[in-house]
């Protein structure tokens, strides 16, 4: 239009200069020039009417007449607050930018309130996201929220009336009153959030009003207390009965209740939650969702009088002992949970001591062998002369026991550490792969039963063997597993050798580290087994033990398992497979035999004893078949790889473990 006005103007000017035209103005007046031409009230691009906000506010901004009457006679609220709009983030927009169906003023027919929030925010962001001034950068957040909203239950069609969604933008946001970040409008919007949600969710609002959160927000105006969106999220809202909602809500409790969430995540309940499952108790299961109150409130679900009832929601047979369970027990809190603290310190010292000792042992050993080898000393196989004669070390039963033990242990480590390291992505992936938390539980317990069965079977066999030979059984004989003074001397001499202060000690049938490997599971089986059984059967346990034993059991089960996992997959692997004399592996536990030279080197005392006694030949066998060798190598390789993988996962979990 400006060009038209300009060209008309030029012509008028020229005409006036020529003195040849005078528009007759005798009796007429024209409408004010500042009114412009009617055509200027239309957009030259679209042909659409331009409706200035002032025009809308003549009626909608009149605080004397805030309501009008619909065509059917019913009253309708039409007032909009001018100052509110103008100070809102939408203050610079035209009313019709959002109220796109309004094309005539006065409205020719009852206007349909159709506001295209989504489209406009998307388009505006697409248009301005690369603006250098960043004026529109908040729209990035808005668009994320839109994406979330579109996934949410609110964006789904209403069940009974598919023509509209459950809730749309302006059901919650007053478009006329969206404040800038940090504005009073936003603060008011936050405090008003429960009422806004309560427009639809009436029952929930009624409950919320009675809660600690509700009282703080609605009565005291405390904007630090939780409003609906703090727990339910603002836009990514899922139906309350879905796992998504339950998980998000529980997660969101921790935004304020950090310590409670930290300790919750240490508990089995929290670990399950963190893996993405809702099978165990979430915050609202115990504390009540909308009804959340302090424990001193007699109507609170966690009040001492109500707590057992609360536990029985899941643990149907829970008894009084459950009440002494510490749902938020903190093993680092010496003051409040000294028992738990004590067990943690003990277990950690144990782990530290054992690992420190053995890793030093490993490193020195490695150092020594490498040094010796570089000097051409030590045990070097003659590779040009294949081993033909082997010494039988393990009978079939032992080999099977070890194999099953290895498998069961690895399964236990894998399934168990997913809980311990529930914060890791790998843990979640493993649980999902295994078929969920319940399936994982079944697998873990199955493996535990197998493990314990083998352990007990071995005990039985060993005991019966000893019983049968009780007359002649040499408790400290050359093939005995019972630790003797020689083992301690060997250990001492070994360190001397490591440090170059003596020769490598000569061992009998079992070395001290082999004896350690044998006896350690006795301790482990006791600690892990008992704590595992407690955790396995909480209802039964509570018949005889106080609730806090669950806390202790959970702690020691995890710590001991951790110790075992790390020890087996590092120290045991080194001692058996990775030390240079054996590297890359020893298949003896699956073939049951070792080359006679190797036996001679590692167990010289026993070798000499057997030669002296003339019994060596009884133990000598042929080289295992090629098939046997290959199978043993394969199984060993797989198990070593699996063990190293587990070790890696465990280390990842440990390093990333949140405090």
């Amino acid at each position, binding site marked *: *239009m400006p060009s038209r006005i300009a*060209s008309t103007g*030029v012509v008028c000017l*020229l*005409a006036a200069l020529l003195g040849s035209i*005078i528009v007759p103005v005798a009796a007429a007046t024209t409408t004010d020039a500042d009114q412009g031409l009617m055509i200027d009230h239309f957009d030259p691009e679209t*042909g659409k009417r331009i409706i200035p906000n002032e025009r809308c506010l003549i009626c909608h901004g009149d605080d004397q007449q805030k309501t009008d009457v619909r065509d059917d006679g019913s009253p309708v609220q039409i007032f909009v607050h001018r100052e509110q709009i103008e100070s809102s983030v939408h203050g610079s927009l035209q009313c019709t930018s959002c109220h796109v169906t309004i094309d005539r003023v006065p409205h020719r027919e009852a206007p349909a309130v159709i506001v295209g929030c989504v489209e406009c925010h998307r388009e505006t962001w697409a248009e301005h996201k690369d603006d250098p001034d960043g004026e529109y950068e908040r729209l990035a957040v808005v668009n994320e929220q839109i994406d979330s909203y579109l996934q949410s239950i609110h964006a789904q069609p209403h069940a009974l009336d598919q023509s509209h969604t459950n809730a749309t933008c302006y059901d919650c946001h007053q478009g006329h009153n969206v404040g800038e970040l940090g504005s009073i409008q936003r603060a008011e919007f936050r405090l008003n959030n429960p009422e806004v949600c309560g427009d639809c969710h009436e029952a929930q609002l009624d409950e919320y009003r009675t809660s600690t959160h509700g009282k703080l927000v609605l009565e005291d105006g405390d904007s630090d207390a939780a409003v609906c969106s703090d727990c339910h999220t603002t836009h990514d809202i899922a139906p309350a009965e879905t796992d998504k909602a339950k998980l998000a809500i529980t997660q969101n409790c921790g935004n304020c209740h950090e310590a409670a969430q930290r300790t919750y995540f240490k508990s089995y309940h929290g670990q399950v939650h963190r893996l993405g499952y809702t099978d165990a108790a979430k915050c609202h299961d115990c504390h009540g969702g909308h009804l959340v109150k302090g424990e001193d409130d007699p109507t609170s679900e966690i009040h001492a009088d109500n707590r057992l009832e609360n536990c029985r929601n899941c643990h149907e047979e829970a008894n009084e002992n459950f009440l002494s369970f510490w749902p938020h027990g903190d093993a680092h809190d010496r003051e409040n949970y000294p028992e738990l603290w004590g067990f943690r310190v003990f277990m950690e010292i144990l782990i530290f001591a054992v690992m420190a000792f053995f890793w030093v042992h490993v490193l020195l050993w490695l150092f020594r062998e490498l040094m010796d080898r570089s000097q051409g000393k030590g045990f070097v196989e003659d590779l040009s002369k294949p081993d033909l004669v082997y010494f039988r070390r393990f009978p079939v039963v032992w080999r099977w026991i070890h194999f099953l033990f290895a498998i069961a242990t690895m399964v236990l480590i894998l399934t168990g550490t997913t809980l311990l390291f529930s914060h890791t992505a790998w843990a979640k992936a493993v649980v999902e792969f295994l078929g969920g938390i319940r399936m994982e539980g079944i697998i873990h317990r199955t493996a535990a039963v197998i493990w314990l069965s083998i352990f007990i079977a071995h005990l039985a066999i060993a005991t019966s063997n000893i019983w049968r030979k009780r007359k002649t059984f040499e408790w400290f004989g050359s093939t005995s597993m019972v630790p003797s003074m020689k083992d301690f001397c060997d250990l001492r001499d070994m360190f001397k050798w490591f440090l170059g202060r003596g020769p490598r000690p000569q061992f009998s049938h079992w070395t001290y580290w082999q004896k350690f490997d044998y006896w350690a599971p006795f301790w482990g089986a006791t600690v892990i087994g008992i704590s595992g059984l407690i955790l396995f059967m909480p209802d039964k346990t509570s018949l005889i033990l106080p609730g806090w034993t669950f806390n202790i059991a959970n702690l020691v089960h995890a710590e001991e398992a951790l110790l075992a996992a790390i020890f087996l997959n590092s120290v045991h692997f080194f001692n058996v497979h990775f030390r240079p004399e054996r590297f890359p592996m020893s298949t003896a536990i699956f073939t049951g035999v070792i080359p006679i030279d190797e036996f001679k080197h590692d167990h010289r005392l026993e070798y000499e004893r057997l030669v002296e006694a003339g019994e060596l030949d009884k133990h000598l066998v042929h080289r295992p078949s090629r098939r046997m060798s290959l199978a043993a190598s394969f199984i060993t390789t797989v198990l070593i790889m699996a063990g190293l993988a587990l070790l890696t996962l465990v280390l990842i979990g440990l390093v990333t473990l949140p405090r």
Partner: protein
Amino acid sequence: MTDLTRRTFIEAAGGVTALGTLGFPSLVLGATRRVVVIGGGVGGCTAAKYLRKLDPAISVTLIESKPTYTSCFMSNEVLSGERTLDTLVFSYDGLRRYGVEVVQDTVVGVDPVAKNVQTAGGNSFGYDACIVSPGVGFKWDAIAGYGEQIANESIPHAWYAGPQTQLLRDQIEAMPEGGHVIIVAPPNPFKCPPGPYERASQIAMYCKHHKPRAKVSILDAKDAFSKQGLYTEGWTKLYGYGTDDSMIQWVSAAEGGAVEELDASTRTLIGLVEDFQADVINIIPPQKAGAIAFAADLVEGDWCPVDKRTFESSRHKGIYVLGDASSASRMPKSAYAANSQAKVAVAAIVAGFHDRAPDDPTFVNTCYSVVGEDFGISVAAVYSLDAATNMIEPIPGSGGVSPANASPEIRKREVSYAHSWFKNVINDMME
């Protein structure tokens, strides 16, 4: 809901812009175009004003023999005393304010080859385009015994407003109670088809108040006339038409209404069937194109053939014939038609000056008649050019006369609108 699209918007804006940009190149090029308009009636005045309005760079000269314009429309109200003659007289100063050079002179010839116009005053006006809007002339010899001199002295035609109108008015006023007025209506085509019948109505309205026993007769050369049904309705309602006492009689040609001769001395009209004697006689003679059209060699038969898209003469290029003199079937010879045709011709001339083809023409005619007190009627039509028949045809489904038996409010409003029509036509042509 109206969808005012970008397309229509741009067209409208473009049309408006044309007001400015059309003149601009002419100014720059210094090629001032000259248009001479002959005749200061509705057609001529409208053309002169709109030429200046559409392109102020065009030099426009209007040549008219009379110093002022006296409108024929509404002149019947002078006969009834509803208005005085001076309310029909308008100055050409309005056109002068638009930059039109108004020359009082009589055109004696147009040279379509040399493209100039000669006047009785001895002047010659060169032109790029010439608009001839001479109105009608009378076939004086059609009724024996009638002539221009008799018309001026005793038996007025009053078909050009001015002294003729006043003469007729004076005669009606002077007529004794119970007197008889005769209006001789011409055969088709003639200017202002409903005019004779409105005239009878207006005279009857005067008589109803001042000479209730007087009679008004129309001797018609036709068997039907414009808005006949509505006139009949109005006359019946207001003047007892159809009864023995009717103030108005209409004698169709079939009933002997056609008049062959006038005996001015006895005020007797000699018809084919019978003779008619009256106190006041108004003869509206049969008509043809105005004299200038004949002088400029623009006539074929009685009227001037034109290209109906532009109103350029079919006989001579560069000359445009507007209004009553042109042969513009099926448009009636009316003020509104001339006004409408003038705008079409102007648009075509301006387009031609800018080497553009003329747009498709559009025409409107509206005509109000005041039958009596609070009884107005109208006829309206919107026309387009039918290229196939080269006829200006009413757009089917549109136009027509006021509804029969309309409410008194509507009839009354049409009187008010008739007066508005009058003011606005005058305004649009010369103010």
